[in-house]
């Protein structure tokens, strides 16, 4: 079997106001369905050991998690090596409930933006209120970053996980580097 790699082969960049790196391979499964249906909840929670996230939230621990994407969609995170097993379990739990579960791991790129100014880097790129009082760890947001669709969530203070389409990976990496270039602190959140 061929060896699969991430879009940018784990590129990383330091020296700016935040540390930008491409995360190692991460299993991602899109699960569409009625999020209040018992079978869908069982599939999402059973595969990850995480609770169902509230609207706009991500329930993550380590490589496993469930992220709210829209009123009828969640993103299930699992270790890359366990995708087949996890997907099979999800499909078994779903049974004949009207739903859809697809492995999208290799269709996406995942970046981590880390550092005291990570919030500022993100705020420069997304049309989202990222004030520390409004956007807090555990929140998930699907939006736009400059010219491409993206989604991000905060695992902890000062660290954002960003996902985008794999074909946009280089663009996203360059974009994050530009937004984090040395000396580009705005100081907006620090002051407020």
């Amino acid at each position: 079997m061929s060896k699969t790699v991430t879009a940018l082969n784990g590129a990383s960049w330091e020296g700016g106001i935040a540390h930008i790196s491409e995360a190692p391979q991460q299993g991602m499964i899109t699960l569409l369905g009625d999020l209040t249906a018992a079978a869908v909840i069982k599939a999402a929670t059973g595969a990850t050991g995480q609770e169902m996230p509230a609207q706009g939230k991500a329930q993550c621990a380590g490589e496993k998690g469930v992220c709210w994407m829209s009123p009828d969609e969640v993103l299930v995170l699992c270790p890359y090596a366990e995708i087949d097993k996890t997907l099979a379990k999800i499909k078994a739990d779903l049974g004949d409930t009207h739903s859809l579960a697809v492995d999208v791991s290799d269709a996406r790129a995942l970046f981590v933006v880390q550092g005291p100014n990570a919030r500022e880097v993100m705020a420069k790129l997304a049309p989202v209120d990222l004030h520390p009082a409004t956007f807090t760890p555990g929140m998930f947001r699907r939006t736009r970053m400059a010219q491409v669709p993206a989604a991000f969530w905060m695992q902890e203070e000062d660290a954002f996980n960003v996902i985008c389409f794999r074909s946009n990976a280089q663009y996203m990496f360059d974009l994050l580097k530009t937004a984090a270039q040395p000396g580009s602190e705005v100081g907006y959140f620090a002051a407020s």
Partner: protein
Amino acid sequence: MLILTCPCCGQTGEESEFHGGGEAHLKRFGPGSSDADFEGYMFMRENPKGVHFERWRHAYGCGKWFHAARCTMTLEVFGTYPAQTTEPPKELRDKISKKRPGWSWGAFS
């Protein structure tokens, strides 16, 4: 800048996360209708200075269409409401009446 809240997924974002879809509450006149009706449906649009109703799509979010009421002069957003309706909800119309007494838009006031 417009700050819109999607009534479907509850997320609030700046307008570039959304995509404008033109005037709201158009009544379609298709095959078999009179030329005048079709012309009205196809070409005639409100162009208000003040209260306006529009369709928007949460293009970079949940992808759903919804309606928004806003002021074309101040860009104040009075409210957003789901797409599955043919008229603005009464609550919203009352709210607009408080802020813009005497407003009217198409058949609504």
